[in-house]
């Protein structure tokens, strides 16, 4: 969460309660605290700015009208909000899970991980990162979410477990498998683009 001088020290739980009572200032502060993290998670998961914006708005609108739901003992407020957003992503993109067979085919092509183009080669690097995001979205959702949360959002295993509703040990194993699968996909995508693995 970025520092914002407009923010108070009030707890997230208290802000949520006040928001549910119709306090617009509390809702605004809660939004400023957590919106970026939720947006980034959904942005990578959906690959679309418009979808991410819609889901972010829907997440906060549904949460701010509830009195119950967030339990600080079960994880951070960011984790709670990401969990709500994740459900909304699943509700919109249920069919996405059907792309698993496509992933299997890609994954059989090659297991080599290419090198990332150097930062000075901006265009090529940008294209390469696009391929990385495509590969992440091609992962099965239960792998994809863990990878985004831990590797890209730098969330703790505990928060990731709370968001995805799985055990800590499962987070570790899914992350390991997600990384392995991503490496395969990445190698395959570059091989398909250039005609040969780098």
């Amino acid at each position, binding site marked *: 969460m970025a520092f914002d001088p407009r923010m108070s020290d009030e707890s997230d739980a208290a802000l949520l309660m006040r928001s549910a009572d119709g*306090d*617009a200032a509390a809702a*605004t502060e809660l939004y400023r605290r957590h919106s*970026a993290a939720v*947006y980034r998670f959904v942005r990578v998961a959906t690959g679309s700015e418009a979808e991410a*914006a819609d889901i972010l*708005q829907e997440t906060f609108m549904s949460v701010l009208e509830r009195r119950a739901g967030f339990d600080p003992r079960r994880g951070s407020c960011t984790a709670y909000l990401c969990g709500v957003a994740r459900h909304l992503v699943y509700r919109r993109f249920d069919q996405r899970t059907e792309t698993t067979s496509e992933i299997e085919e890609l994954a059989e092509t090659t297991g080599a991980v*290419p090198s990332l183009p150097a930062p000075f080669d901006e265009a090529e690097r940008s294209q*390469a990162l696009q391929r990385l995001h495509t590969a992440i979205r091609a992962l099965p959702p239960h792998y994809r979410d863990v990878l985004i949360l831990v590797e*890209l959002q730098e969330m703790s295993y505990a928060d990731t477990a709370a968001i995805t509703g799985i055990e800590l040990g499962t987070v570790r194993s899914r992350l390991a498998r997600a990384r392995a699968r991503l490496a395969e996909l990445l190698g395959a995508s570059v091989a398909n683009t250039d005609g040969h693995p780098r």
Partner: protein
Amino acid sequence: MNEPRDTLDTWLAAARADLARETPPEWIESALAARQSELVLLRRLRPSPAAKEVGKRRRPRPAFWWFSVPAGAVALLVLGVAVLLFTGTPSATASGAPAFIALTPLETIAAEPSPVVVTSEVPRAQLASFGLPVDPARADLPVRAEFLVSQRGTLLAVRFSPE
């Protein structure tokens, strides 16, 4: 070719740095603030038990909400409230439109930097709570109302459309 683990970490670090620059569109915060105002209004306009009895006879239409924040219109509305306070009665303004009924002191309304106008339909029985006459024969019909609302969701003024 690099060591696979190191290479994947390099890719992920680059993606992480890219992602950290992503920020949500600003319009979402405004939309949420408007929604909060709407919720406050909905709670305040929740029908009383007597109104619910009336509602059983005729199913009320769902309220339609839409928001607009044209700065000029807001200035006119505040002017309308001032006219009302000076004349002392909720009569029509010079333009023919009904005057606003102030629900907070004029200083509070004048101090509000960016009020919004929220339009809705409310149970006609609510007119009585503002000291306005209600025709019992039409008490179950909704009436169109415009509310002047502060950014924090405080009701500043209201006016009801003529029949």
